[in-house]
């Protein structure tokens, strides 16, 4: 119970910081849209390639712009010894982990909605299979944010954190990328039954990382 109230506190703090600093709105979201435009340059927009590749491009854009949000989740506390303050605050480490995960997840969800509108408008993708799409988004977001927050703290406070986090996180998230892409593909092609096993796999992934984060965050936070 304490864990959940702590999580709520941390998530509110982080989201408030994001809203006030406007980094997510002014930098991360424009970057996400930029990625979508870059894909159009890289692939021929006239031959329907973009529409065919929408699921993959969508999730690549989510991962890359999400990485920025996850870097932020810990660089917020990098300056002025705020990490120590957080450690001294008496909040339970599991609560801090869940709070940060929640804050990252909320930002990812906003990004995903924006990118969804982006692909529908820019790539002309017609959207079908709403139930599977929405469940995939929720489960994949949970998977990305649980793993991202855990690896975020592994890389936090190091001089090499900007280069280390993508190296650690992207191979780990490969199954989520595959799963979310395939689930989107089956939803958009009107065969949702093929997508549900992927939702299951991503749920297992999210649970594994949530458990690892809840238990691993304490030891990771104790050293500096």
């Amino acid at each position, binding site marked *: 119970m304490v864990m959940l109230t702590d999580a709520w506190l941390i998530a509110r703090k982080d989201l408030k910081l994001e809203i006030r600093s406007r980094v997510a709105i002014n930098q991360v979201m424009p970057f996400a849209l930029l990625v979508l435009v870059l894909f159009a340059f890289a692939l021929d927009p006239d031959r329907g390639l973009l529409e065919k590749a929408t699921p993959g491009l969508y999730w690549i854009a989510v991962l890359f712009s999400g990485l920025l949000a996850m870097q932020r989740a810990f660089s917020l506390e990098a300056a002025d010894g705020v990490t120590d303050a957080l450690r001294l605050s008496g909040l339970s480490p599991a609560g801090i982990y869940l709070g940060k995960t929640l804050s990252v997840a909320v930002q990812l969800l906003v990004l995903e909605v924006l990118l969804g509108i982006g692909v529908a408008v820019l790539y002309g993708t017609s959207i079908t299979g709403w139930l599977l799409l929405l469940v995939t988004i929720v489960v994949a977001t949970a998977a990305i944010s649980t793993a991202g927050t855990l690896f975020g703290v592994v890389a936090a406070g190091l001089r090499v954190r900007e280069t280390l986090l993508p190296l650690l996180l992207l191979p780990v998230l490969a*199954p989520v990328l*595959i799963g979310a892409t*395939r689930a989107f593909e089956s939803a958009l092609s009107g065969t949702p039954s093929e997508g549900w096993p992927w939702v299951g796999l991503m749920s297992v992934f999210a649970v594994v990382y949530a458990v690892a984060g809840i238990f691993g965050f304490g030891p990771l936070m104790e050293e*500096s």
Partner: protein
Amino acid sequence: MTTETVGSVEASASGPTSTGSRTTMVLGIVTLIALGVLVLFGLILSPADESQGDSVRIMYVHVPSAILSYAGCFLTAIGSAVFLWRKSQWWELVAYAGAEVAALFTAFTLITGMLWGRPTWGVYWVWDARLTSEALLMLLLLGYLAVRRLAADYEVRAKRAAIIGLLLVPNIVIVRQSVQWWRTLHQTPTLSLSGAEIQGLMLFSLFTGFVAITLVFIWMVIHRFRVAWLEEQLEAEGLDTAIAERRAEGVIS
């Protein structure tokens, strides 16, 4: 895990004092003999395959090293778990040695696999489930090693690497499952050896390969562990010496 135990990784008193011992020397000689037997059977005595020709000989080292690359990851996960639980530096170094040797074997598996694939399939790489998971395994191990070799305090890099090492096993399971589905839901797997029955001298050569490559693996892990142990001892000793020298300076002047 309580706060008191953190920050004091206990170094066991009895550790190796050199990179080898009499036992590892015997092990090394046995390994060399086994490799010689493997060369004899794999390259000379065993026949060429009907469909694959001489390139089938690559399999005698490729298959064992693929399996041992996974064994190395399990060793790393076990070492990391015991380190996080008991704060034992010994196990942390076992995990590190396992990961490094596993990365080497993964690279060897990928290279031999490509050399086999080129004459057999006509291409170095196909997006087969097994190939893809081996490649991802390599990237996961590189991530572990990147953290383990950070220019940071031993405490910091050991603990962070151990969390990653512990997660290697669930990661591998999930990665393998996902690429399996990825390649089978939409098309049949490209690689299929099930039609080819291996028997006789070829089976024996593969068996020899398993024995020889496993011995190489064990020999490498032991030596890597001993070197890592000595490195950490030297670092700790170097710090003590430096502190003592500074103190001495203070006394004189």
